[in-house]
């Protein structure tokens, strides 16, 4: 199970690009990296998942370098509504449960 480390908090302003980096030095060959978002008093919501290189969807991009020891979630042009906690998770396909850390609390200011 990949242990992940990410900053506790980050501040940004509306319209900026935000990059949240996650370290996972002991990631295993079969581990995927998944990011979830959680707003206050709501359940987590899947954002994006990747194995290596770059993955992009309508919400975010995920960059995973060749050594896979880290990954970066990129949120383009954030708005106030992107204020949330972002979790980086590592896991294998056979693993049923999600192991959440403390996440990164992103605060977007006007």
């Amino acid at each position, binding site marked *: 199970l990949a242990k992940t480390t990410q900053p506790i908090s980050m501040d940004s302003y509306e319209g900026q690009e935000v990059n949240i980096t996650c370290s996972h030095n002991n990631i295993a060959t079969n581990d*995927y990296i*998944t990011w979830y978002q*959680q707003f206050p*008093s*709501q*359940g*987590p*919501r*899947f954002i994006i*998942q990747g194995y290596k290189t770059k993955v992009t969807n309508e919400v975010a991009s995920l960059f995973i370098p060749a050594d896979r020891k880290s990954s970066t979630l990129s949120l383009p042009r954030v708005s106030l509504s992107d204020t949330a906690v972002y*979790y980086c*998770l590592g*896991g*294998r*396909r*056979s*693993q*049923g*449960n*999600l*192991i*959440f*850390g*403390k*996440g990164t609390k992103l605060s977007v200011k006007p």
Partner: protein
Amino acid sequence: EPEVTQTPSHQVTQMGQEVILRCVPISNHLYFYWYRQILGQKVEFLVSFYNNEISEKSEIFDDQFSVERPDGSNFTLKIRSTKLEDSAMYFCASSGLAGGTYEQYFGPGTRLTVT
């Protein structure tokens, strides 16, 4: 977009009472989960359920907890004798496929307050 629903949104109970938290997973999903989040802390896995049986559970999920899928749509979490430390937000989740690499869809949660 299909979503996971949970009832009630808030449950207040006295210590020692039994509570049942209810969830309706997304209709074609096969894997169901319960997580909890104590206020200000991280989301913790409790149990996963597939094919009418528990597939995985955490240390938190002791004999006081049980899960059931009583019909084709509901998925319930029962706490037999609540303790003060059971106060938390309880999230149900479901996924179409097994494994942490597959997207899990979370419900809005039930806030359980034990007094």
